[in-house]
């Protein structure tokens, strides 16, 4: 089974998986980060309380987070098709992955920023900082180590989801595992793909923790 074709397939699987994970994480942050920030600032004890905005975002995030990924994956297929032009393959999978990652990321960002000491924000206010400057000069830099840890969690979770998309020909290692292990009972190949997934998760998590440690000046 270890012919060149199989190896090439595995390499392509790894590349596709990384592509999906990185792209979905990036898009997930583009959507989820602003939502996370707004969740903090519009909260009752935030720098600009706004009850209706907070409630709306809170409910949207909770609803989207409670939809199982596989259901979402199938449900948004028509939408995926209009955006990407197809509903199979790794590029198509990025759409549901992003949609499911964004609310999760919003919560991660929210909890990271909430860790920032209220006193530091009050000090910035006392120095005449605008809310916008408080966000990007105080909250985000102060929450940086925690945000980096959050991104490691987010990307590994998204990686797991991307493998699930294998069931609907989503591409990447997940598809290989399902095609060979599930449909053809080629257990060895399935184990190899799973091992590869484990290694990728380990590496991403280690990089995330290391980066967070380096950026954290509190110790």
């Amino acid at each position, binding site marked *: 089974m270890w012919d060149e074709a199989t190896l090439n397939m595995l390499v392509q699987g790894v590349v596709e998986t990384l592509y999906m994970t990185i792209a979905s994480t990036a898009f997930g942050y583009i959507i989820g980060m602003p939502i996370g920030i707004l969740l903090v600032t519009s909260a009752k004890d935030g720098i600009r309380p706004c009850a209706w905005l907070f409630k709306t975002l809170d409910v949207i995030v909770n609803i989207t987070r409670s939809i199982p990924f596989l259901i979402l994956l199938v449900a948004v297929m028509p939408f995926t098709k209009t955006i990407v032009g197809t509903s199979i393959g790794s590029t198509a999978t990025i759409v549901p992955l992003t949609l499911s990652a964004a609310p999760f990321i919003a919560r991660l960002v929210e909890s990271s920023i909430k860790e920032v*000491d209220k006193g*530091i924000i009050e000090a910035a*206010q*006392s*120095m*005449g900082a605008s809310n916008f400057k408080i966000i990007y000069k105080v909250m985000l*830099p*102060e929450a940086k180590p925690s945000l980096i840890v959050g991104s490691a969690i987010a990307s590994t979770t998204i990686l797991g989801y991307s493998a699930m998309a294998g069931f609907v020909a989503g591409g990447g290692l997940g598809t290989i595992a399902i095609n060979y292990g599930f449909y053809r009972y080629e257990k060895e190949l399935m184990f190899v793909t799973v091992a590869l997934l484990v290694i990728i998760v380990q590496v991403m998590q280690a990089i995330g923790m290391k980066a967070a440690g380096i*950026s954290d*000046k509190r110790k």
Partner: protein
Amino acid sequence: MSEAIIEINSLCKTFVTKDRQVNALNNINLTINKGDIFGIIGMSGAGKSTLVRCINMLEKPTEGTVFFDGTDLTKLSAKKLREVRRSMSMIFQQFNLMMQRTAEQNICFPMELEGVDKKAAKEKAKELLKMVGLEDRAKAYPSQLSGGQKQRVAIARALATNPKVLLCDEATSALDPKTTTSILKLLKDINKRLGITIIIITHQMSVIEEICNRVAIIADSQIAECGRVEDIFYKPQTAAAQKLVYPEGKLTDKLIGKRCMRIVFDGNSSFEPVIANMVLECKAPVNIMYADTKNIDGKAFGQMVVQLPQDENLAKKMFSYVKAKGLSVEEVTGYVG
């Protein structure tokens, strides 16, 4: 007298919680003059922190006005208020430095907000660090600094925008006595050298005695007493003031009903052995119940509570002896410690 820099008129602040209203501040009137080191003292929960936050509008007063340098802050737009806040800095009990920035970067922060050129900001930060005695710690992160050093960095940061007023919210409460003294000395130096008006919120009378020239005593959400530190120290009028000025502790209970007098020392006299001379002159011993003298504003300052002999005439003689020495003296009756 000098002109007013902050004028607070009939200020009220009410917090509304789910089931009740809390009157944190009730009809506060205060005038703080340019160059003052103004103390605001009170017990925990008296409303002092709320009051200082009403001065720079971190808390919006429910009623009343706050004039700063002639402008009514309660009527300013958010944008204008941000500008004003740059000339009214604040330091905190917990220092509130940004943990992910070095000391120098922390000091540069308010200048970044102002749009000061990076190089000029760095130059100024260096100067300020030197002023607070931390020129060698520019690259240190707050986690690498001691409490006193953190507060010095916070003071340097507060001075970066050349403020007219410095608000200190329990700035020394998290520090040990020795560090407290050094920070107070620094504040006094800043007041003298830069002419910055300083407002100090504290619950420690010792802080007020050490550097303030005027003081307001706040109790039960109101100003109980306000005036020169010496006056309030000599003759506290209200129960709230007496509670803070008179020696604390169990001692005071024992004093009630006994023949005790409280002597307040000013400038010259504390260097003269008044009590010893009095004892020699009257040929009768007294019991020193309490004594506390220190150097305030360059003058020796302090108080002493002595128990006089049972003999009424002797006691009277002692009383008039001390009075003749030009000391402020009063019979201590049933005050509550």
